[in-house]
């Protein structure tokens, strides 16, 4: 079953503007992206920073309006949702952000942070408390931390709190935008392990965004590679790793395996005339 469907979505930002308002330079943050996320099949999105991953995630979250194209959640076009249904959106889709030091309000105690998503919840107070304790345990904390403040926690711990907060509403889709990128390798492993446990337990599907292929592979059976605002290759993780077709994917793989900084200068490729073609079943490449 299709959970999220993104159809030919474009978003350009005008960066430099002449002081008379003309002659602006366009950044093609997202440039004609098509993709679907199926229920239960987490999708990993990889690409270097600046390629438009965050913009795509925010479009998916309905936080940015795309210039063209449509986003469907469970078959509903999110561009024209009635007011009542837009209210329900947070309980269907949630997001975990990149920077755990800025994603929790320093003035809120952990209790208030976790309670915040429940503002419009139909659960009773008791049930909300119950849910809070359940999630706190699920991400590996005891109840003692409820009265503490974010500054008392490390980056990894904060990210776990952020994950607990995102799961409070029991969303079907959880978008993780570089959720582990700012953490060191060992903590990354912990969080990834935790995420795979949570996936089973709460039946949530991930849209996992990272610039690191290695990290994405651990969590996602399906991977999409993004480059300059376009999806250049998409397919099952195994196939993509064993038989990468697009040169950019190959380069990413090389970087992921050797950890060496790649000094390949990104040649300005002409991507515009290319289309995503299906090479084998479920494996797409831009050519």
């Amino acid at each position, binding site marked *: 079953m299709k959970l999220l469907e993104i159809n030919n979505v474009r978003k350009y930002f005008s960066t430099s503007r002449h002081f008379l308002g003309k002659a602006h330079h366009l950044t093609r943050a997202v440039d004609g992206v098509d993709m679907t996320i199926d229920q239960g099949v987490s999708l990993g999105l990889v690409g270097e920073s600046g390629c438009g991953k965050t913009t795509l995630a925010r479009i998916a979250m309905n936080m940015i309006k795309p210039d063209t194209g449509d986003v469907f959640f469970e078959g509903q076009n999110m561009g024209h949702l009635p007011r009542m249904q837009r209210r329900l959106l947070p309980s269907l889709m949630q997001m975990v952000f990149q920077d755990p030091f800025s994603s929790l*309000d320093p*003035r809120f105690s952990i209790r208030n942070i976790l309670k915040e998503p429940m503002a419009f919840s139909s659960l009773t107070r008791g049930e909300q408390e119950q849910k809070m304790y359940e999630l706190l345990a699920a991400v590996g904390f005891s109840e003692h931390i409820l*009265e503490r403040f974010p500054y008392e926690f490390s980056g990894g711990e904060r990210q776990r709190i952020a994950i607990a907060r995102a799961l409070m509403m029991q969303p079907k889709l959880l978008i993780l935008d570089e959720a582990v990128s700012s953490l060191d390798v060992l903590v990354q492993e912990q969080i990834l392990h935790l995420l795979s446990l949570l996936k089973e337990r709460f039946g949530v599907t991930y849209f996992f965004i990272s610039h690191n292929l290695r990290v994405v592979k651990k969590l996602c059976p399906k991977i999409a590679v993004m480059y300059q605002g376009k999806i250049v290759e998409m397919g099952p993780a195994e196939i993509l790793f064993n038989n990468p077709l697009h040169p950019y994917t190959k380069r990413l793989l090389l970087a992921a395996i050797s950890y060496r900084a790649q000094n390949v200068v990104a040649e300005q490729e002409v991507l515009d005339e290319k289309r995503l073609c299906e090479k084998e079943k479920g494996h797409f490449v831009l050519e």
Partner: protein
Amino acid sequence: MNKQGQHVSQFQASFKVFQRNRLAVACLSVLGLLYFLAIFADFFSPYSYDNEDRNYSYCPPMKVHMVNQDGSLSWPYVYGTSFVFDSFHKRIYTEDKTQKYTIRLFPKGDAYRLLGVIPWDRHFFGVETKGRLHLWGADSRGRDLLSRLLWGSRVSLSIGLIGVLISFVFGLFIGGISGYYGGWIDTLVMRLCEMFMMVPGFYLMLALRAAFPPNLNSLQIYLLVVVIFSFIGWASLARVIRGMAMTLKQREYVLAAKAMGLSDLRIIRMHILPHTMSYSIVAIMLSIPGYIMGESALSLLGLGIQDPYASWGNLLSEAMGIVQIRFAPWILLPGLFIFITVICFNVVGDALRDALDPWLKAEGQS
């Protein structure tokens, strides 16, 4: 780090920094005392604001005696006064040593309602009603200056506070909305702010006062002055808060709150405005003097609080003639009080800025 949370410990740290500034602590105490006296002005002043006795017009401050004529110590007392006219028909007051009035604690006097409710007629100190006590002299109509100063402090001290609070509520709210939404709302609000800031405050104040009918009662005038101040004061704060809101809204916890489906107003209230608080507290402290001086200026020109009601500016309006200043210099005392209050607010505001500095810096970063 302790368990109570960063904000407690950070607050304690700020408090320590503030405490180490002796001058600021002293000024804060002075302000505290002034506000305390203002609240209980009717009790602490020997007379009501409108208790007059024309026989004491421009009576100079009375001497308090502690020693009897025979050299023995006595409870503090004052002599009665009598006057003769000099060649310019100016009154020359002299002590009448035959009349002796001891200064008593809690004597009966003008009736009032303590805190506006409890009817009472005892005052902190005073003399029996046959005599009069003018420790800081009397004004042209023989009203006790000390009493009128205390009564006037109610108006002068509260008008600044209330005016500041109202205009800050507006400033925070409007600035927060403007910075959070951006776009045409922001443009509109900011142009409006600039329009208000462009007109010099004093002239705007005069213009606004002129726009209202002249025959208002004292409560109406009081409210009017507050409204005028709020009208002028919000713009500059709104501009600063708007700038802060623009950086604060980029923080990921604001995005997270949006993703949770919280309403914009709730986000502004919960996640934007609280982070501007340390700035606002300092700004409030530093802008109260402006309001106090504004009220004084308005009343000095006779456009604010009207006689017989007292405010510091209104009291000073008696000191506009050179003759009064030359022969009755004590009527300048309200000016001294305005001066002290303004200095104190500025010192406390500066010290608060130093004490909250780490917070201000932390909130300034994006």
